[in-house]
Every structure is written in structure tokens, then in C-alpha cells.
């Protein structure tokens, strides 16, 4: 029943052969029935599916993108963009500036290409959600604790070891310690990381515990079925409740080519399509709540590169292995290391022509550190041209000022750590800074998002959870206010952003939701008793 695979093969080679239906190879329309249909196979969808199937429910996972297996990962960025990223990596948020927005569009979602960083939801954030949104009983630290523990155990969460630390991370930690800035090695989902620095294009060793090599194949092994390359058009509504989904295999634009995939759900549909795609799916289903698509938030980040005399070789070691969260509450920023592949680094290297070529050779001596902002700005996810999802957000002045402050701090740290020159990548600031005194240029840079090379990967809101149906989309039980049996379990429901990497919170909340749904007889999630609040 199981495909032949060597004992050491990644988990994405070992699952029942009939558990995976590849929509790209479909030969006709399909119709099947399950207890639950889960839309999306990223951090939230995979975990929810696994929790449901572990509770004895029959589950279908529907994923818009393909399943790119570990053995198919290359180290080229273009190939990864084309196969695994939404809009081939060209997705942007529109506002005062265009802000690149990277999202996975494949089995495993963004966990295939992120850095696998595990942070529990900060308690002050949960307190804020309790106070402002009335979620104290539903999302208390006590309620989330067993889910964090289970995920940490199952995904082998561990601190970056010496063997995978790498010079980029080591330099950051050493300098932070010298400055008296509390910093630490990151905790990541990994099992045998070799520090190959290839998180961004998919871990070639199956060591990073993305959903593609963990909860998805584990759920399949327990009886779930995966429908990849199937784009969900809408949730099927029958008898006033969610009764399944209607999806299409590739060729949806020209339906003569694509096939209809109708997946019925006896006990409910869980939407885990991501913050950008979930609002559109709710609207296509006929939901009309005013809060759908509103209150979108993100964590914009910007990096500074420094050239050292000794080799840094940021391609060796954990892609992101060191961080400081000590300024999260006071300054709403997080400092961290970042290694990027040569194709992306080439854009950050200053100059063009001869100057650029000369600097190419310095790449092996470059360290890169980034500041990530818990942005105050709120945006909107709506419908764009051709029914595509469109994200609009303009960073607030305060957000840009915080990024600028963090960038200047990192720049000074880099010079103190021994960098001989810096590439700040800020418009209005010289391309190359050669002394710590010149960091004042960054301090004086315009507080304008168009001056900075922001990028974002952490997305929140747009289907907010709350007790007020006029101001939120789902209730504390994760069920939409408007349609029975329709749940949203991804980071769309987060009332605010976090200030730390969100994957752990997304997974724990999804597991919590799925567990509550599975514990109910009807499939309807039961809100926890009020005394469950911590």
C-alpha cells in the first residue's frame, strides 16, 4: 500500500499511494464525501487536518498549488518562485509603496520556504485580545499550552545547534552580547539541520519540518486524502450550512480543460487558505459581513548588509538562526539574522555594471541582519482585476520610523562587530557606508516607506475573530457568524499582529480549533467554559 522508499526518505515519500489526488493529472470530474474538508495545506490547514483525522474523522485537504517533493527541490530561486510561490513571487501589497509579499502556493504553503522559526504567542498579545476583543476564554495561554507542547514535540522544536549556527548568526549573537542587548539562538522546527542555508527554496534534506514533510503526510498516513492543484471556487451551501467545497483542477479560466472537484463535508468546512485568500473565498461563498477583508496587518521587514574582512558565507548555517525580541514591547521591533540566496542578494548589492561586478566577489564576506516591525498600519484584502485577491496597505509613519531606528541600530552593531562597509539599501542614504559615524545618514533618512526596501511574509487579520458579528467574521469558536459549519482557522482570524514569527501561533490555534470541532458530536465547535481563561 505504501510506495517504496528508503528508510531515510523524507516523509513526503511515505504515505498510502491512493491518498494523494493530483489535480494536474485529473481525467474527469470528481465527487467524494468526508466528515470535514480543509481548504489549504499550510501551517493551519495541515495541523487542523491532522488533528481531525487523529480524532477519527474522515478528512479531505484541498490545496491550490502542486506538491513539490523534497527530491524535486533545487537551489535556484526562479524555479522555486515559479513552482512554489504565489504569483511566481511577484505578489505585492499596494499603498504608498509597493511592498513585496511572499506566500507559498504549494502543499505545505509558506512553511516550505520559511525559516521554521517557533515562537509561542506572547502573553501580552493574548491579554490584548482578551481585553479588546473578548477572547479571553477562547484563546487563553492555558487553552493554547497543550497545543504548543504537542506541536513542539511532534515537530522537534529545538534551539539552533553549533553545527548549524554559521558565521552570520554567530556574529549577531556575539555583537548583541557585547552591546548588552538580550539575544538568543532561534528555536526552529527541524530534525537534522545541516545548515545548508536553503530554507528559501525548500529544504533538500527534509530536515526542516515544514508541513510538506510532517503534518500533511502524517495526516495522509492516518487516512486523510489530499487534493493538490485544485483551486477552491466556493464553499457549497446546502440547508443553510456549509456542506462542502467546489474546486477546479488547472484550466479554470478555460473550463473545458479543467475538471470540477466536488468535495462534500458532513460536519463542516475549515478554511485555512491564508490571510490573503480566505476573504475572497468567503465572499465568493456569499458571505457579506462588513468585516471581511478588513483589519489586515503584517510585519514588514528590512535588512542591512555588511561586508567583513573575514568570510561570513551566509549560505552556510541556519538561514535565520539568531534574534533579539527584547525590543518587541518597547519599540515594536524584532531584530534577526537573515541569509538570502545569491539571486536575491544580487539585487541588494549596490551599483550596476562594473561596480556591481566588483562587489559580487565580496558576497562571501557579507552578513545580513534585519529588523521586523509589528506594524500599526491596517490594510484591506479585496477583489482586484479578474477576481484576483488584492491587498492594500500603506505603512504608518510610526512604522517606518521604527524600522529606521532598528536599521540604524543594526548598522551600528555591524560596524562594532567589524564590518568594513555597509550596504543600507535606503533611498537618500549613500549606497555604501564606511564608518559608524555615517550611520547618522540612516537616522536622517525620510520616514517614507518608498525609501526602504521592505518585504513582508507575516500576514494577519482580514477575517477577524470577535464576539461582535458587526466587527468580526468568526466567533470565539472559529465558526463564521454568517454560516453554520464554516470555520476559519488560519491567521485571518488573528485580531492583531504579534510582533513575533506567527507560524507557531497559527498552528496552535488551528489545532485548538480542530480539537474543539472534533470533540463536538455535531462537528460544531463548542466554546470553552468561561473558567478556562487563565
Amino acid at each position, binding site marked *: 500500500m505504501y510506495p517504496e522508499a528508503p528508510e531515510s526518505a523524507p516523509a513526503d515519500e511515505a504515505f498510502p499511494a491512493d491518498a494523494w489526488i493530483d489535480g494536474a493529472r485529473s481525467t474527469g470530474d470528481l465527487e467524494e464525501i468526508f466528515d470535514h474538508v480543509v481548504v489549504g495545506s499550510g501551517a493551519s490547514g495541515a495541523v487542523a487536518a491532522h488533528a481531525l483525522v487523529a480524532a477519527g474523522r474522515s478528512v479531505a485537504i484541498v490545496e491550490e498549488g502542486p506538491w513539490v517533493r523534497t527530491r524535486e527541490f533545487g537551489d535556484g530561486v*526562479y524555479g522555486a518562485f515559479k513552482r512554489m510561490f504565489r504569483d511566481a513571487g511577484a505578489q505585492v501589497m499596494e499603498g504608498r509603496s509597493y511592498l513585496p509579499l511572499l506566500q507559498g502556493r504549494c502543499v505545505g504553503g509558506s512553511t516550505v520556504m520559511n525559516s521554521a522559526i517557533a515562537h509561542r504567542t506572547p502573553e501580552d498579545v493574548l491579554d490584548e485580545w482578551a481585553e479588546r476583543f473578548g477572547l479571553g476564554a477562547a484563546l487563553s495561554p492555558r487553552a493554547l499550552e497543550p497545543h504548543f507542547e504537542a506541536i513542539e514535540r511532534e515537530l522537534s522544536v529545538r534551539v539552533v545547534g*553549533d553545527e548549524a549556527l554559521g558565521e552570520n548568526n*554567530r556574529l549577531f549573537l556575539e555583537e548583541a552580547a557585547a552591546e548588552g542587548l538580550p539575544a538568543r539562538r532561534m528555536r526552529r522546527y527541524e530534525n537534522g539541520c545541516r545548515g545548508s542555508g536553503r530554507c528559501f527554496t525548500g529544504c533538500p534534506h527534509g530536515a526542516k519540518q515544514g508541513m510538506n514533510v510532517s503534518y500533511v503526510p502524517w495526516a495522509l498516513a492516518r487516512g486523510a486524502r489530499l487534493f493538490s492543484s485544485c483551486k477552491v471556487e466556493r464553499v457549497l451551501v446546502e440547508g443553510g450550512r456549509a456542506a462542502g467545497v467546489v474546486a477546479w483542477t488547472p484550466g479554470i479560466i478555460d473550463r473545458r480543460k479543467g475538471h470540477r472537484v466536488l468535495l462534500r463535508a458532513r460536519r463542516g468546512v475549515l478554511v485555512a487558505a491564508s490571510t490573503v485568500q480566505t476573504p475572497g473565498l468567503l465572499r465568493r461563498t456569499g458571505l457579506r459581513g462588513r468585516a471581511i477583508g478588513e483589519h489586515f496587518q503584517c510585519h514588514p521587514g528590512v535588512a542591512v548588509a555588511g561586508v567583513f574582512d573575514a568570510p561570513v558565507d551566509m549560505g552556510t548555517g541556519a538561514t535565520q538562526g539568531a534574534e533579539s525580541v527584547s525590543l518587541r514591547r518597547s519599540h515594536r521591533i524584532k531584530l534577526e539574522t537573515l541569509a538570502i540566496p545569491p539571486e*536575491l542578494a544580487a*539585487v541588494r548589492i549596490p551599483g*550596476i*555594471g562594473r561596480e556591481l561586478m566588483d562587489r559580487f566577489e565580496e*558576497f562571501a564576506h557579507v552578513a545580513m541582519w534585519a529588523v521586523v516591525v509589528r506594524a500599526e498600519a491596517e490594510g484591506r484584502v479585496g477583489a482586484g482585476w479578474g477576481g484576483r485577491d488584492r491587498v492594500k496597505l500603506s505603512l504608518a509613519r510610526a512604522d517606518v520610523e521604527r524600522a529606521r531606528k532598528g536599521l540604524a541600530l543594526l548598522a551600528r552593531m555591524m560596524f562594532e562587530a567589524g564590518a568594513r562597509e555597509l550596504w543600507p539599501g535606503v533611498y537618500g542614504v549613500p549606497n555604501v557606508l564606511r564608518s559608524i559615524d555615517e550611520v547618522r545618514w540612516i537616522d536622517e533618512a525620510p520616514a517614507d516607506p518608498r525609501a526602504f526596501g521592505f518585504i513582508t511574509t507575516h500576514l494577519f487579520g482580514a477575517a477577524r475573530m470577535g464576539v461582535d458579528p458587526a466587527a468580526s467574521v468568526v466567533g470565539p469558536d472559529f465558526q463564521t457568524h454568517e454560516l453554520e459549519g464554516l470555520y476559519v482557522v488560519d491567521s485571518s482570524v488573528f485580531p492583531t499582529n504579534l510582533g513575533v514569527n506567527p507560524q507557531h501561533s497559527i498552528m496552535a490555534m488551528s489545532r485548538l480549533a480542530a480539537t474543539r470541532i472534533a470533540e463536538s458530536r455535531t462537528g460544531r465547535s463548542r466554546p470553552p467554559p468561561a473558567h478556562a481563561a487563565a
Partner: protein
Amino acid sequence: MTLTRLERRWAEAAMVAIFPGSVEAGLAGIGAMQVDAFLREVMRTLPFRAALGVRLAVWLVAVAPWFMLRRFATIAGLGLAERERVIARLVASRSYAVRSLALLLKAIGALLYAADDRVRRRMAPPRPRLAQLRGRAPAV
């Protein structure tokens, strides 16, 4: 969306100026790579709005000599050094739209150029063992 042959020629002329290679370093320029085929492939892959952005970028760079050099020539009609100067000015433009579009060509060219094995070896020489780098880890 696809670029016309003329547009691809302009795009390649710009990319050759951005990534000319280095004789001293023994690095070929992007012109020695399959730029035309790559551009066709990229335009097929990108969603409409992004592809439209690439087309705008190509036209911006193509006609930039008209308003920057006051010369009736496209980017492909300039010598390498002049092309480089024109693009450098675009990348440093006060206009966010202009510098973003010019950088878009650099970003697309980088996806091809820095993916080349020879270029990668130059940027990231064979990896030394971590222990050889410094051989120490902080007690943090």
C-alpha cells in the same frame, strides 16, 4: 503577456549593462546567457499586472536616452558605458516609480545571472567548514 522581439532586445541591452561580467574575474556577462529565452519564459510565468510592470520597465529604460541624453536613440543604440550611466541614473531617480521599474530589470536579470554556476562560485566560493571559519561559538 509576451514581449515583442524589439522589447526583448531592449531588455537584454539593459541587462547586459547591469551585468556586464568581469574579464579580470573571469566572469562572462549576462549576454552570454540565454536572456531572450529567459525573458519569454518569465513573461509567460508572471501574472498580468507583474508582466505589465516588466513591459513598462523595458519601455522606460528603452526611451530613457531621449530625456536623459537628449538623444534620439534607444538603450540598445548606446555603447555599454553610456547604457550603464543611463541605468545608474534611473536606479537613483528621485521618482519612486522610475527607480522601482529600473530595479525590476535588475531583479529579473539577477534571477538569471546569479543562478549561473560560474557566477555562484564567484559569489559563494566552495564552503569552508564552519569550524574553519572561526571555530568558536558564543556562550549565548
